[in-house]
């Protein structure tokens, strides 16, 4: 008996050590990476770097266009993809479509989440850029990225909605509530923190996307900030990609600088999102 406990304790210890080791390893990789990027990129990090337009001369080049393009693009993408994605999830989950059609939709949405982003780029090029005639505008880019991340938003929102206990729904129905009142009065608020998590993940994926934007023809040399959704644009990752692929070593330092900024933007986005989440979860603690 006692032996058994001893060996169990030992297994427990080994398991814990293994978990700790692996966690430490992945954190270590991250730290090394960050360190390396900072070492290469810090040289160009300055206020001018943020406020200068791109340039042929490394010391004059900046990422102003990329920053503004990214902000515009992600804002528009969020405005398109969040309402459509969340409402689709609500529809699929609460107004259950039974039978074959429901299954087909379900499987398709799940599969769409795994389609390579370049495929969405081609789709965006064909539909938005050419067919709709939006050209290489922010709108085309945002719609393409929306296509890309909507399945992710739908899948994660559905999970969050599924996690809302039925007992809550029945409690509300038993008070004579309509489906709409149940969904918007209870299900959505309770699922909101979970939905937000999915949305954050999806948007931070969109922020880092390069391939589909190259396909739809976003430019890398832009020396103005967008003023409308029909303007041409560039984004941070494109700018980074462009610099990193140049032979001149100096541009690689610029690219590293851009990566630091991109990381900072993503981290602050995540931070804001976590704040929203915490506030939301305080309100509808379950």
């Amino acid at each position: 008996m006692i032996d058994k406990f001893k060996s169990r304790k030992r297994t427990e210890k080994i398991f814990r050590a293994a978990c700790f080791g692996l966690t430490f390893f992945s954190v270590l990789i991250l730290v090394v990476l960050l360190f390396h990027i900072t070492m290469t990129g810090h040289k160009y990090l300055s206020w001018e770097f943020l406020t200068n337009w791109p340039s042929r001369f490394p010391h004059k080049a900046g990422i102003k266009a990329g920053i503004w393009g990214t902000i515009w693009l992600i804002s528009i993408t969020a405005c398109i993809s969040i309402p459509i994605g969340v409402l689709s999830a609500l529809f699929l989950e609460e107004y259950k479509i039974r039978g074959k059609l429901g299954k087909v939709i379900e499987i398709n949405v799940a599969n769409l989440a795994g389609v390579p982003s370049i495929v969405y780029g081609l789709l965006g090029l064909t539909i938005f850029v050419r067919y709709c005639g939006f050209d290489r505008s922010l709108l085309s880019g945002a719609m393409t990225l929306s296509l890309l991340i909507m399945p992710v938003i739908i899948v994660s929102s559905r999970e969050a909605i599924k996690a809302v206990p039925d007992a809550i729904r029945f409690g509300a129905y038993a008070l004579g509530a309509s489906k709409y009142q149940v969904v918007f009065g209870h299900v959505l608020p309770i699922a909101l923190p979970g939905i937000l998590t999915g949305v954050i993940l999806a948007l931070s994926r969109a922020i880092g996307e390069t391939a589909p934007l190259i396909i739809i023809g976003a430019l890398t040399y832009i020396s103005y900030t967008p003023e409308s959704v029909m303007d041409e644009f560039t984004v941070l990752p494109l700018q980074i990609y462009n610099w990193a692929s140049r032979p001149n070593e100096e541009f690689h330092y610029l690219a590293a600088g851009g990566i630091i900024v991109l990381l900072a933007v993503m981290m602050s986005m995540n931070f804001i999102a976590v704040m929203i989440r915490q506030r939301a979860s305080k309100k509808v603690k379950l």
Partner: protein
Amino acid sequence: MNQETVMTCRNVNIFYGEKQAVFDVNLDILKNKVTAIIGPSGCGKSTLLRSLNRMNDFVPSFSMNGEINFDGRDVLKSDPMEVRTRIGMVFQKPNPFPKSIYNNIIWGPKIHGHKVNYDELVESSLRSAALWDEVKDRLHDSALDLSGGQQQRLCIARTVAMKPEVILMDEPCSALDPRSTIRIEDLINDLREEYSIAIVTHNMQQAARVSDYTAFFYEGELIEYGVTDGIFTNPKEKRTEDYITGRFG
């Protein structure tokens, strides 16, 4: 039994898919009385109860025939939302909304646009659920911070706030400790002044303590129905006697 009835079931048959769960039940719920529904597990008590306020509509395989008369109309042919507004329900497990105590109570009246003073409504509802004194200083705290027994009384208060005519309770005490159970039983005793109550319970003493009438179900059939005292002291059916004396169930 020349009492006023609020609900009348006539030849009610209930099915889940092919399987019949309730057979040809005729049952009256009497006004300002507590009707206990007892019987062994799986005999269709919850099924019947949920049909009274159309909560079975959410079960895809559910179907039924017969007539459930409520206020001169067939529940089956009425608008389910209206039915549920007038026939409240308390569930087996307390299911407060993850909102404040205050908002739990006003949510129902609010969505129906009842023009009332919410503060007064909250107080009167909590008072009639014997919860007011315990929570009056923390009305805006989360309902989830309450104990299980308090949560169940909050659910009763939430139901009462709708001013329904009938309150259905499906084993409302089965998740509670003895003290909370006693409190809820006392509460039911008081509620009968204003409401008509149907309560499903597995607890024989509880049925005997709180109810005026008792209906005994067995395998989906209503075996015996009558004044609680009569059923418990002098059951006419052998199966009823066996069940209430604990010989099976």
